[in-house]
């Protein structure tokens, strides 16, 4: 308890100490902790940022934080312990002060009793009796003596409560301490105490005693002294122990700490609290020391408090975290709900039909767009397996085969494929299907997800644009023809105009009765000019012929297959629109034909189109167009390939048949009547032959021949 002692020496109230101290300490501690925390944080962050990923740095920070909190708690417990200790110490100090004042009080009462003895029992007989009575009442007294001024013993009484202490020591001579005390008493003219000394009792025993010397005056004159011997031990036992000795050990000590006498309980305790107080008596000074043995301030309640504090902090932290977490959870839930609603809205507003199938081919999901597309309710579709209600009956076999392929695990092309679906009312419509495996969260394939796009509108637009494109091309061709005709007529008109001028002029001259002599020369000149202009007109005609000849050089060897392939996309486009099935039959090992590829393709396209249009009326249900290429008639000089286009349409009326190849004859509202006549011209330019005949039971077949390309040696 050095600390308490030191503070005490400075004269501060002892109970102040720990509070002030703790406040100082705490502030310092907190500042230190803060600084430590801050510098620690900076330090940690710097090192962690450099060395570790942020996650583990956070972990270490948490550990540091918990360590700091623990340190603060331990400090709190320690400070609380110290506070308790200082309370005990203060109590002990108070007790000691009380004890000293009690001691003084009882000592001065004893002095009064002695004075009464002096005055009332001056004669030796009664004195002795009275003295023994007094000794019996005051147990701390060992002996009372009266002495004269020369310190000669006049009378004495020993305590009847114990064996006389002075038997072996007659004490006729006064002990030095008593002498000193009496001298002092004489000087003070009042009671004086001697310093304590050791009174040996033989056999190594002894006790600490103290003398009180009370001067005896009579009528203002000093007559002698009354000397009382105190046992310090008994003084403590008698005067202080009943009050203070129950919890403390009381003792008198010398200034240097040597213990003179002690009394009271000596409790066992782990800690000793000591308080000392000076007992200032006339003539001497002693130190009263009180040792309180108390148990160490109990750690448990403090720890309990600290624990409760820590738990409250933890509880609050947890609550804050919980609140935060639940807020986050709420936000996440809201976000999720929003995302779900968004996805639902997206699915519902999608124009693309979505359909999911499981691995057995059963429909597990359809979106509203799909239902709208096919005209069935979702409830009518979900759980259905092949054949689906939206499959056109005539396609069921093909589709079932396709589904089998799909279920065997073959992924369809990424860019999707086209198919035909049927609405509830039986109408067919084309769809573009993009199908992909449906992969669950566990990464397993659980089925197939398909997106369907109704492309009938797209088809219609395509068709429209193609038709308008064709019209435009036809117009352009017409314009070109017109342009060429205009150019040609202009080119021919010039020489013809000149010729006409010269001819008419010559006639004028020859008719003129007043013709001048040189008329003949003029007519000569005019005729020469006519010849020149005729030549010029001839050259114009030749250039046209040249143009046609140049077209001849565009001929090449082409495989019949290539000819049919080239027109296939255009033919198929129209066939889909008119729902015509197109079959192509090509004999194996056909030789290439020698032709102007572009022109012949045009011929084939024209014939195919005519055939399909012939089938485009409601009575015609089985619409089939056959494109055929086979070997034709041959002789040793030239062999031929025959191409045929067969339809099963209405056929051709006999009266129409007669005019079929006449230019500008047409049975179509939009036709120009040039198609077939041009076809024949083209075929004939190639040296071939174009003809048609009725097909049994109905329909028409158009055939034409093309020369086989001569293999160049």
């Amino acid at each position, binding site marked *: 308890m050095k600390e308490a002692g030191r503070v005490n020496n400075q004269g501060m109230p002892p109970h102040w100490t720990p509070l002030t101290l703790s406040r100082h300490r705490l502030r310092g501690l907190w500042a230190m902790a803060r600084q430590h925390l801050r510098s620690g944080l900076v330090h940690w962050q710097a090192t962690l940022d450099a060395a570790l990923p942020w996650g583990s740095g956070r972990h270490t920070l948490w550990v540091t934080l918990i360590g700091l909190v623990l340190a603060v708690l331990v400090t709190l417990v320690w400070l609380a312990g110290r506070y308790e200790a200082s309370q005990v110490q203060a109590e002990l100090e108070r007790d000691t002060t009380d004890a000293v004042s009690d001691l003084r009080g009882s000592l001065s009462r004893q002095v009064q009793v002695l004075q009464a003895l002096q005055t009332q029992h001056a004669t030796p007989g009664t004195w002795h009796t009275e003295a023994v009575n007094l000794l019996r009442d005051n147990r701390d007294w060992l002996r009372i003596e009266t002495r004269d001024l020369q310190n000669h013993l006049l009378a004495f009484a020993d305590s009847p409560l114990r064996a006389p202490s002075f038997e072996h020591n007659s004490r006729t001579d006064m002990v030095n301490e008593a002498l000193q005390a009496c001298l002092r008493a004489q000087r003070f003219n009042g009671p004086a105490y001697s310093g304590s000394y050791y009174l040996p009792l033989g056999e190594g025993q002894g006790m600490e005693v103290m003398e009180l010397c009370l001067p005896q005056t009579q009528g203002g004159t000093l007559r002698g002294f009354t000397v009382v011997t105190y046992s310090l031990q008994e003084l403590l036992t008698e005067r202080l122990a009943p009050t203070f000795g129950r919890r403390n050990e009381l003792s008198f000590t010398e200034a240097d700490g040597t213990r003179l006498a002690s009394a009271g309980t000596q409790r066992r305790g782990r800690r000793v609290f000591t308080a000392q107080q000076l007992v200032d008596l006339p003539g001497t000074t002693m130190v009263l020391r009180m040792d309180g043995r108390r148990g160490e301030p109990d750690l448990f309640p403090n720890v309990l408090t600290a624990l409760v504090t820590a738990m409250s902090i933890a509880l609050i932290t947890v609550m804050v975290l919980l609140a935060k977490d639940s807020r986050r959870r709420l936000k996440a839930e809201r976000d999720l709900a929003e995302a779900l609603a968004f996805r639902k809205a997206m699915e519902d507003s999608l124009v693309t039909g979505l359909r999911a199938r499981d691995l057995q081919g059963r429909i597990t999901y359809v979106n509203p767009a799909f239902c709208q597309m096919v005209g069935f309710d979702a409830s009518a579709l979900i759980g259905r397996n092949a054949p689906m209600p939206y499959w056109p009956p005539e396609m069921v076999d093909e589709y079932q085969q396709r589904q089998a392929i799909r279920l065997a695990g073959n992924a369809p092309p990424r860019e999707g494929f086209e198919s035909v679906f049927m609405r509830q009312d039986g109408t067919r419509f084309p769809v573009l299907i993009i199908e992909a495996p449906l992969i669950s969260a566990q990464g397993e394939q659980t089925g197939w997800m398909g997106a369907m796009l109704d492309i009938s509108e797209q088809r219609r637009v395509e068709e429209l644009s193609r038709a308008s494109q064709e019209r435009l091309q036809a117009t352009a061709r017409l314009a070109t023809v*017109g342009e060429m*005709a*205009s150019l040609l*007529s*202009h080119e021919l*008109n*010039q*020489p*013809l*105009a*000149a*010729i*006409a*001028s*010269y*001819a*008419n*002029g*010559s006639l*004028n*001259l020859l008719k*003129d009765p007043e013709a001048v002599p040189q008329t003949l020369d*003029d007519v000569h000149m*005019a005729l020469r*000019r006519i010849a*020149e*202009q005729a030549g*010029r007109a001839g050259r114009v005609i030749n250039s046209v012929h040249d143009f046609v000849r140049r077209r001849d050089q565009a001929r090449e060897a082409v495989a019949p297959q290539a000819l049919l392939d080239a027109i296939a996309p255009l033919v198929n486009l129209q066939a889909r629109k008119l729902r015509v099935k197109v079959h192509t039959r090509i004999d194996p090992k056909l030789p290439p034909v020698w032709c102007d590829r572009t022109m012949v393709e045009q011929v084939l396209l024209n014939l195919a189109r005519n055939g399909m249009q012939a089938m485009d009326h409601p009575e015609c249900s089985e619409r089939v167009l056959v494109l055929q290429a086979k070997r034709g008639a041959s002789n040793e000089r030239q062999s031929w390939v025959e191409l045929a286009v067969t339809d099963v349409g209405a056929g051709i009326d006999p009266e129409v048949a007669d005019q079929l190849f006449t230019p500008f004859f047409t049975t179509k509202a939009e036709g120009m009547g040039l198609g077939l006549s041009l076809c024949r011209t083209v075929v004939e330019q190639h040296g071939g032959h174009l003809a048609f005949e009725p097909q049994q039971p109905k329909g028409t077949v158009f055939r034409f021949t093309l020369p086989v390309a001569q293999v160049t040696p």
Partner: protein
Amino acid sequence: MYSPQDSTVYIVDDDVSVREGMAWLLRTRRLLSDSFDSAEAFLEMLQRNLELGGQPLPQQAGCILLDVRMPGMSGLALFEQLLANGIAQAWPVIFLTGHADVPTAVDSVKRGAFDFCEKPFSDNALVDRVEQALNLSQERLDERLQKGLLQSRLNELTERERDVMRLVVEGLPNKLIADQLDISVRTVEVHRSRVFDKMDVKSAVELANLLRMLA
């Protein structure tokens, strides 16, 4: 009636053989012609005449044979320009066209061309039309010249003579004219005879006819 010596047929065509043939044909019918190979060349000739001190409008009968289709400025564009500066009225324009240009030629006739002729043309019929055009040109020229003469005569009259003339043409007798102008009947008579002299007429009726023509 035009005089072959004082009238010219202007041929504008990019084709030299057409130009030459046409000129030769016209010559066999005793018509003078002048050929130009483009619209620009023709305009250049007009401009040159103007610079040499010629009148803005031709003082001779004439007629223009104009090809519709020419490189550079087309016949139609030239026609527009001639309409604007009055030449097309003085010299009637006959268009020469290939058959593709017929609608445009018809259109231009509606706008004031004399005629159009489809190539290859029936030539003497064309020359007949040319002669008719020259006649028209001559008529218009005469009319224009007469108007000019009248105007110059009118310009010679004094202010008082003009007042008297106005009243004479209105048919007032000399007495009333004198009253209205606040002059003596004698003075009116002097003015009246002077007006008749200057305007080269014998009677008031003749004078009135002349003035109507001018208006």
